[in-house]
């Protein structure tokens, strides 16, 4: 088990190194990288917020189910 985890970590770190190298000096002009990369922050916040919103809805439906059970 320990060996498996260790080798997995090695593979991940190797992958990260290779990605870092391929990115060196390459300026990508995609929208997500422009303007001080603020869009990435917006994206992260939107994802977090959507997660919380869905969570609220699941709580809402769970309470609704309990209410229906109580009515019977």
């Amino acid at each position: 088990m320990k060996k498996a985890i260790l080798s997995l970590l090695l593979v991940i770190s190797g992958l990260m190194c290779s990605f870092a190298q391929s990115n060196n000096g390459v300026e990508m002009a995609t929208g997500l990288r422009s303007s001080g990369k603020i869009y990435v922050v917006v994206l992260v916040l939107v994802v977090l917020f959507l997660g919380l919103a869905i969570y609220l809805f699941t709580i809402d439906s769970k309470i609704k189910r309990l209410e229906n059970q109580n009515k019977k």
Partner: protein
Amino acid sequence: MKSYWWKILGLLLLLYSIIMGLLGPVPALPIVHETIRNVYFHVPMWFTMFTLYVISVVCSVKYLSSGNPKDDIIAVESVNVGIIFCAFGLISGMLWANFTWGDPWPNDPQLNGSAIATLMYLAYLVLRNALEEEQKRARISAIYNIFAFPIMIVLMYILPKTTDSLHPGAGGNSGFGEFDLDGMMKVVLYPASLGWILVGIWIMTLRFRIRKLEYQNDTAAS
């Protein structure tokens, strides 16, 4: 679906406020710089808290005339959620103040007033827990709530405006509207406030429904 529309509306308004709040145009001001965007997130916390406290005091008045335990539960859950939003407002304000006023708690009358008002509402919750008998608890805490509400307004919205405060719109400071001449911040601030108010009320109703279920189970068991 019929009862869900305002919840979805609240979430969509918040989504809009996050995207437009970070990407929309803002006035370039000294000292605050980009932190002016905090207006979109810090101020709605206080609007939401205020709305929830209004709901609470209305339900307290209703309880005194009707004696319906449902009104009492709405009153207490509104204060519970309102205090959460008040804490968010205080924490976000302290973070913001640390980087623009140079101190997380500069002895600003608005800050001290809101701290005392928060303590008052915490005392309301403590008072409720101290009383055992259900009707007595509901009635005494309703009366306390009705007295606490105007004091909260005076402490947070009237006294700070009459003295020198670091907050906009007090003392010699310019109000929010004076540097937002073309209304580019209003189109984000107002939807954001409405969105947070709707979501705050939603969370309050969730807590209220849980409390009601507990209440029904308790009365059914005894």
